[in-house]
C-alpha cells in the first residue's frame, strides 16, 4: 500500500486554519528561517481519512480479534473508559504548578490522588507515584528509589538479582540505574531455584526483581521466604506488576514482603495498548521508600482539598514531565471505579479459570513443561511439533490465518519453542473453544503436512517479511530524508 508521502501532490491542501486576526510579524532572519515549508505530505482531508482508515484495517486489534498474548493481558478495553478520559482533555498540567494554581485543578489532582490510593490498596503498598509513563519506566523508577534508599542508608550495593524467567525489561531497567545483573535459573518445578538464589544473595545485592506468578504462570509458594532472604541482606524486593491480573484481591505483593511494585495500567486495568503505547506504570512503595518518590506529588489536605508539593530533598527527582500519562490514568481509575471490589476479584478468578481451561484442553496435543494449576497464563512448548519442523513461529502464523493473534512465542526464554497463552477474563468460553480448536488443528496439521506451514499466513496484506533485509538495509525513513 502506498505511503501517505507517495500520495502527496504539490499544492494540495488538507485541513484549513483559522484566519489571522493580527498583522503578520516581520520575518525571521535567514539564519533562523527554514528553507521553504517542511516536506510533509500534501494531501486532501479525504486522502488523510482514506489512508489512515485503510491502514487501520491492516491491523488486528482487541476489538476485532482475540489476543491470547502471554504476559500482556490484552483484555477488552471498555468504551466508557475513552469517554471518561476525554472529560479531562482540556486541562493544562501547568495550572496546578502555578502559584495557588492547585485550587484551579482540584478535579484532575483528585483523580491522580484517588488512583494512587486505590492502587496502594490493591497492591498492599503505602504510597504510589503515577508519574512513570510505562511499565519499564516504572521499573527504572522503582530501582532508582531502591538506589536512593541504599545510598541514604550508606549501603554499598552493586547487583540486582533476577530470575531467568523474568521479562527483559527487568534487567534492562536495573542496568539503566547502573546495576550489574545476577540471573538465577529456574528449577525443574518451575520457580526460581531457591538454593541457587540463596547462593547468589550477598550484602552487595541491592534488589531482587520478581513477578509472581512468574512468566510460566506459576505462583511461587516460597515467595515470602525469598523476600525474607533478601531483606536479611538489606536487599529490597521489587515486584514486576505485569502479571498482577492473576492475583487481584487474592494476593497483595505488599503483604507478602515486596517493597516496590510497578503496575501496568494498560494490562491489568483495562486501558488500551494503542499499538504499543501509551501505557502507564505507577509505582507503589512501602513507607521506607516514600520519601524518595519523584515529584511533583499530589497530597490531600486535611480539608479534603488537594495540593501539589515539590519532591522532597531526598527524592530521586523527576521521571517525566508532569503527573504521568494522565489520560491513561483516568481510564484506569474509571475501570477501578466501575469494577469495584467485587468486580476486580471476578477479574482474577475468571482470568485464572480461562487460562486453566485452555491448559486443560490443549495439554494432550502440546507439551506442557510445567504441568501444574496455572494462574492467568500457561506456557506450552511446540517441541513435539518442532520435531516435524513446525516451530512455535509457524503455529503463530497458522493462527493468524484462523483469525487469532498469535500467543507470545519464544518467551519465556527458558522454555524451548515456548507458546505462552494468557486469555484474560474478558473472553468467553466460545472464543476460547474456537481458539482451542485452531490450536488443535495446528497440531494436527503439524503431524499431517508440516510443509504447509511455510506458506502461512496467506490471508494478510503481506506474508512473512524478510526481517534480515530490513535489519541490513535499515530503510527506516522514506526516500528523501
Amino acid at each position, binding site marked *: 500500500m502506498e505511503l501517505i508521502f507517495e500520495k502527496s501532490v504539490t499544492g494540495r491542501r488538507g485541513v484549513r486554519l483559522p484566519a489571522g486576526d493580527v498583522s503578520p510579524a516581520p520575518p525571521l532572519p535567514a539564519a533562523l528561517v527554514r528553507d521553504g515549508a517542511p516536506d510533509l505530505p500534501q494531501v486532501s482531508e479525504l486522502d488523510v481519512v482514506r489512508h489512515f482508515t485503510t491502514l487501520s484495517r491492516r*491491523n488486528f486489534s482487541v476489538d476485532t480479534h482475540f489476543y491470547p498474548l502471554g504476559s500482556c493481558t490484552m483484555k477488552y478495553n471498555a468504551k466508557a473508559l475513552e469517554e471518561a478520559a476525554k472529560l479531562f482533555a482540556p486541562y493544562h498540567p501547568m495550572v496546578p504548578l502555578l502559584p495557588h494554581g492547585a485550587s484551579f485543578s482540584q478535579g484532575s489532582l483528585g483523580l491522580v490522588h484517588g488512583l494512587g490510593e486505590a492502587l496502594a490498596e490493591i497492591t498492599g503498598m503505602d504510597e504510589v507515584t503515577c508519574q512513570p509513563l510505562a511499565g519499564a519506566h516504572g521499573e527504572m523508577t522503582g530501582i532508582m528509589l531502591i538506589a536512593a534508599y541504599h545510598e541514604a542508608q550508606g549501603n554499598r550495593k552493586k547487583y540486582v538479582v533476577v530470575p531467568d524467567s523474568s521479562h*527483559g525489561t527487568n534487567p*534492562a531497567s536495573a542496568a539503566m540505574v547502573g546495576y550489574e545483573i545476577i540471573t538465577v535459573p529456574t528449577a525443574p518445578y518451575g520457580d526460581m531455584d531457591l538454593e541457587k538464589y540463596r547462593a547468589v544473595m550477598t550484602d552487595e545485592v541491592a534488589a531482587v526483581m520478581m513477578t509472581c506468578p512468574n512468566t510460566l504462570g506459576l505462583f511461587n509458594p516460597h515467595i515470602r521466604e525469598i523476600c525474607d532472604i533478601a531483606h536479611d541482606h538489606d536487599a529490597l524486593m521489587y515486584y514486576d506488576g505485569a502479571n498482577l491480573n492473576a492475583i487481584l484481591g487474592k494476593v497483595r505483593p505488599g503483604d507478602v514482603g515486596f517493597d516496590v511494585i510497578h503496575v501496568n495500567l494498560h494490562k491489568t486495568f483495562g486501558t488500551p495498548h494503542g499499538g504499543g503505547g501509551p501505557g502507564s506504570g505507577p509505582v507503589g512503595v512501602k513507607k521506607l521508600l516514600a520519601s524518595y518518590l519523584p515529584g511533583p506529588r499530589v497530597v490531600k489536605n486535611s480539608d479534603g482539598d488537594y495540593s501539589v508539593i515539590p519532591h522532597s530533598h531526598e527524592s530521586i527527582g523527576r521521571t517525566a514531565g508532569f503527573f504521568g500519562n494522565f489520560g491513561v490514568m483516568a481510564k484506569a481509575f474509571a475501570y477501578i471505579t466501575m469494577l469495584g471490589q467485587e*468486580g476486580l476479584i471476578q477479574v482474577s478468578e475468571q482470568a485464572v479459570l480461562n487460562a486453566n481451561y485452555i491448559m486443560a484442553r490443549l495439554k494432550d496435543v502440546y507439551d506442557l513443561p510445567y504441568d501444574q494449576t496455572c494462574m492467568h497464563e500457561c506456557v506450552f512448548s511446540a517441541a513435539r511439533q518442532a520435531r516435524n519442523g513446525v516451530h512455535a513461529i509457524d503455529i503463530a502464523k497458522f493462527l493468524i490465518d484462523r483469525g487469532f493473534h498469535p500467543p507470545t512465542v519464544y518467551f519465556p526464554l527458558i522454555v524451548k519453542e515456548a507458546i505462552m497463552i494468557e486469555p484474560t477474563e474478558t473472553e468467553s468460553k466460545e472464543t476460547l473453544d474456537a481458539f482451542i480448536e485452531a490450536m488443535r488443528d495446528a497440531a494436527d496439521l503439524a503431524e499431517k503436512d508440516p510443509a504447509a506451514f511455510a506458506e502461512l499466513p496467506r490471508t494478510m496484506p503481506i*506474508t512473512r517479511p524478510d526481517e534480515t533485509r530490513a535489519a541490513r538495509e535499515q530503510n527506516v525513513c522514506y526516500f528523501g530524508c
Partner: protein
Amino acid sequence: MSGADYCPNSPEEVRRMLDAVGAADIDDLFRPVSPALRAKSFNLPPGMSEFEMLHRFQTLAGRNAQGLVHFVGGGFHDHLIPAVVDHLASRPEFYTAYTPYQPECSQGTLQALFEYQTAICRLTGTEVANASLYDGGTALAEAALMALRITGRSRLVVDGAVNPFHREILATYLANLDVELVEIAPKAGMEDDVRLRAALDDATAAVIVQNPDFFGTLSDLSGLAAEAHGVGALLVASAYPISLGIVRSPGSMGADIVVGDGQSLGNPLSFGGPSFGFIAGRREHIRNLPGRIIGETVDRNGTRGFVLTLQAREQHIKRHKATSNICSNQSLCALRGLIFLSALGSEGMAELARLNRDKAEYAKAVLGAVPGVEVLNSGFTFNEFTVCLPKTAEEAVVALLRKGVAAGVPLGPYYPDMEKCMVVTVTEKRTRAEIDTFARQLEGALWN
C-alpha cells in the same frame, strides 16, 4: 445491581469450564496460594455502571476551573486539533492493537509508524528517527545517554535555558551513573552561545540545548554545532515541533540528535499526558537509537512490508545490554502526530507556525506597552517570550488566574534571581481580543 466486570461467562459456562479443568470451584484454582499469602485487605468501594462512573467523572472534571485562557506553556501547549485526528486515532484497530511484533497482522501500525519516522526526520532535518519515546523530557535524557554511548565519554554540558523539568529528568536519569553533568547558567532572553562553547572540552560527550529555549529565544545553533564537533562532542537539540513550520531545523543547523515533545502535534493537553517524545539523528548512529524502529522490507512475494527492525538493541532480546529499557512507547500519540502533520501538510504547518509567531509578536507588543512591563528577549522568538514586571510574577499570575487567565509561567521557582519574570506562550488559539484582555488585566493587576 453491582458494577461492570466485563467477565462474559454465565454461571453455567463457568461450571462447565471448571469441570473441564477438573476443579471443584474457583477457589480450587487458587490452591497454589497458601492462606498465609492471601491479601490482608482489599478495601475498595463497590462497583457501578458506566453511567454512574461517567456521572462521577463529570463531577470530578467539573472541579477544575473551566475555560481558563492559556498563556502558559512549560512544555505543553494549547493548540488546535483537527477533527480528523480524533476520528482516525479513535479507530479501535489502532488503539486496541498490540505492539506490532507480528508484522503480518500489524501492517497498519507498522506503516503508520514508518511514515511517522519519515515525517519526524523531514521536520527536524535528520536521517533516522525511532517510533517514539515517552515524552520530551525523557527523550532528552535518552539522547544524553545515547551521546554517552556514541562518544564513549562521560561528561555532558547542558544549557540552563533548557526546560527546567527536562533538566530535572536528565539529572534523575544520570544520578546513578558515572557521568559529570555540567549545567551552564543561562543569559536569559539572549541568543548567546559563548558560555556553552567555553564549557566544551574533549571529554565532553554532548552539549544539550533547546531551541527556542525556555525563555522563548531562538538561536542559530550552527556555530555551537561546529565547535562541539571540533572537540568530538555531539550537539543534542530539543525542538518545539510547531516552530519547525518556519524555523530552520536543528538538523540543518548541525544538531546530531534532535528530540522534543510531540504533544503540540495533535495531542490534547489532557493534564500532562499522554504525549510522545521524538528522537532523531544521523544514520550512522542508528544502532545507538533507543526504542523501537520500524524498517521497510519485502515479504516472500516481494510485496513491500514493514517490520520492527534492529530489535537486537532492545530489552526483550538484549536484556541488560539493551540500548534502553524502553518497551511500551507512545505509539498512538505518535500516530496522532503523523495524522496531524498529514492533515496540515507542508503549507499548513508553515501557516500554523506563522500564525503562532504573528500572535506572539502582537502579544509581545501589547504586553510590552503595559507600563512597567519589559520584554526580556533581545533575540528573535517564536511563540513564547519572557516579560519582567515591576512586582513578582507570582503576584501577577495569582491575580490573573482569579480572572480566568493563566498568564504565564513565573520564573522564580526555576531561576531564583528572576522572580519578577514569567514566560508567556501565545498559540494560534489565542485571539486578539484575548490578548488585549490579558494586557488590560495585567495592567490592572500591576497598578491597582
